[in-house]
């Protein structure tokens, strides 16, 4: 995977908006090993600003972050940047009520509970998204339910 990226000299760029250091460290490490260029932002404001530069292919967005919430970041990105090329995946440990989750899923390209995925499983999902197979309906196949 990493060979492919370096060959074409176009490393796919991932923005990780996550305030939990341990988690962002793990995600960054696993994604870099898989050949991705990863940037981490710790707050909603910084995350939004970085995302609006439109240079990322995938945005991992936590919902409970300092400053403006992930929900607000998502809403503003969709409203202000309709031509955003990045796929946005919500990564959270917060379970939404059904209604708000449906609303989020409409705006995002994926929604996953962090505790139910290891960094390696997350890498697989991102590989699939970037290779064009949209795993939106089948995240559970990566998560614990099917692996158990």
């Amino acid at each position, binding site marked *: 995977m990493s060979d492919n990226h370096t060959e074409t000299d176009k490393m796919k760029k991932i923005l990780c908006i996550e305030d939990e250091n341990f988690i962002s460290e793990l995600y960054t*490490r696993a994604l870099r090993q898989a050949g991705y260029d990863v940037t981490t932002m710790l707050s909603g404001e910084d995350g939004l600003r970085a995302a609006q530069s439109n240079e990322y292919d995938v945005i991992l967005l936590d919902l409970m972050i300092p400053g403006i919430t992930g929900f607000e970041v998502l809403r503003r990105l969709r409203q202000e940047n309709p031509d955003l090329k990045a796929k946005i995946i919500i990564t959270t440990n917060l379970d939404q009520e059904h209604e708000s989750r449906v609303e989020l899923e409409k705006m995002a390209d994926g929604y996953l*509970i962090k505790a139910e995925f290891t960094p390696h499983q997350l890498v697989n999902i991102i590989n699939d998204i970037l290779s064009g197979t949209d795993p939106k309906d089948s995240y559970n196949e990566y998560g614990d*339910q099917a692996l158990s």
Partner: protein
Amino acid sequence: MIPYLSPLKESIWLKIIILSFGCGFVSLGSWLLITKYLPVSDTYAALSAGAFTLSVSVLMGKYIANRAVCATDFLARAILLATRDDSQAEAPLEKKLSKASKSFLTDLSKRVYELASVQQLDDKAQLADLQYFKNVVNSIPLPLFVLNKDRELTFANEAANLYIGMKTDEIINQPIHDVLDLSFVSSLTLEVWLNECSQKAVTATETWERVRLLLPDGKRKQFDLSAYFSSGSSNEVETVLVLYDRTVLYERDDHALTFISLAVHELRTPLTAMRGYIEVFEKELQDKLSNEQKTFMHNMSANAQQLSSYVSSILNIARIEENALNLRLKEENWPEVLNTVCQDMILRAKVHGKKITVEIEDNLPTVAIDKISIFEVVTNIIDNAIKYTHTDEEIKVHSYLKDDMIETTITDKGVGIPSSVIEHVFDKFYRAHHSKNSVGGTGLGLYLCRIIANAHGGQIWVNSKEGKGSTFGFSLPTYASVADQIKNEDNKGIVRGAHGWIKNHSIYRE
């Protein structure tokens, strides 16, 4: 002709006779006078006399017509005035009347006046009645809605407007399911009940508890609902709904559970990091670890994963008790679903040195299920069978059609369940007997299974003998048996809450 009118007729008749005679005399007289005193020819005299007579008779005729119409005019004015017509007719004047019609016309108009004033009193009384009932309905502190035959709102009292925070003109003539986004605990929703009523009932009443209302601003209300249906009464009043608000009471539990949801979030964060680090070590230390250490590493990873699924289970329970877990029922091929999940379980059984055989009856109809939730049911039951079987006896999965349900049983020759506790195995946090220490578990698995099976409209049961083994079974409705609930829903499936929360108008809004 009524005798009353005879004097009037005679007087008009008399006038016409006088007019005719008068005209005769006038023409004769004028002819004589003209021929005697004026030096004109006979023809000219006759023409002049005729013209003079014509002018006189026109004037006389007009006078008689005026007199004759007086009676009708008087009566017309009297009626218009009495009925408060807005044509601004002046009051009838008695003195304009001819003697002949005076007495009976005044008598007649008196009667008209009397009649009209009685009517006016009635109107006033009715208006007062209406205002009275309006006041009564509006002073009822319970929200009250009235629906017509087409299930559109025709009336909402003040309490109702206040309760849903909408003005009368925003809701009147709107379909009820557009105004009130209701969820019910049973499959008998208001909509289903109304459908039944309109088919066969003349009058019917029904009461629901724990009905949920989601308002446009995102606020939720919970209440008990009473409905009265009457098909014959009037097109505009077919169904009356009364709401008894219980939001505070029913939400008291919910607040406690929100704490669990938050706690789950807090537990998951370190768990995510732990699982991440374990994965790093497991992958990167592969070559450096002894076989025993590798096993330990694997166990650590498996336990962390188990912990994360327990955390999710606990949240699921919390959800179920909040009644917020929604199932999305879709048409599925049951043998396919069951085989998929059994393949996973066969692998897991293998690890524990157990064997699973699957026997599925041919030509089973499709089922209406939420695949992910049903995975959980099958996995949980087979997992228990693996855990509680300490021999190499095989575990049998059998699925067959019974009436319009598909039943699936999982039979093991394991330790079995003592008869004294068997009725509790589907209870929350209940863990059977002595195996507590030797086998890990949350005591939530079978509780979840029961909730999920019931939410699908199915049953779950167990037959067991201590020391001989257990048979767990669950039933699921065939798609055909619930298809009528699903057909108008854009193929998106029906949403059904665990505990059976069911949307009143079950369109899956996504």
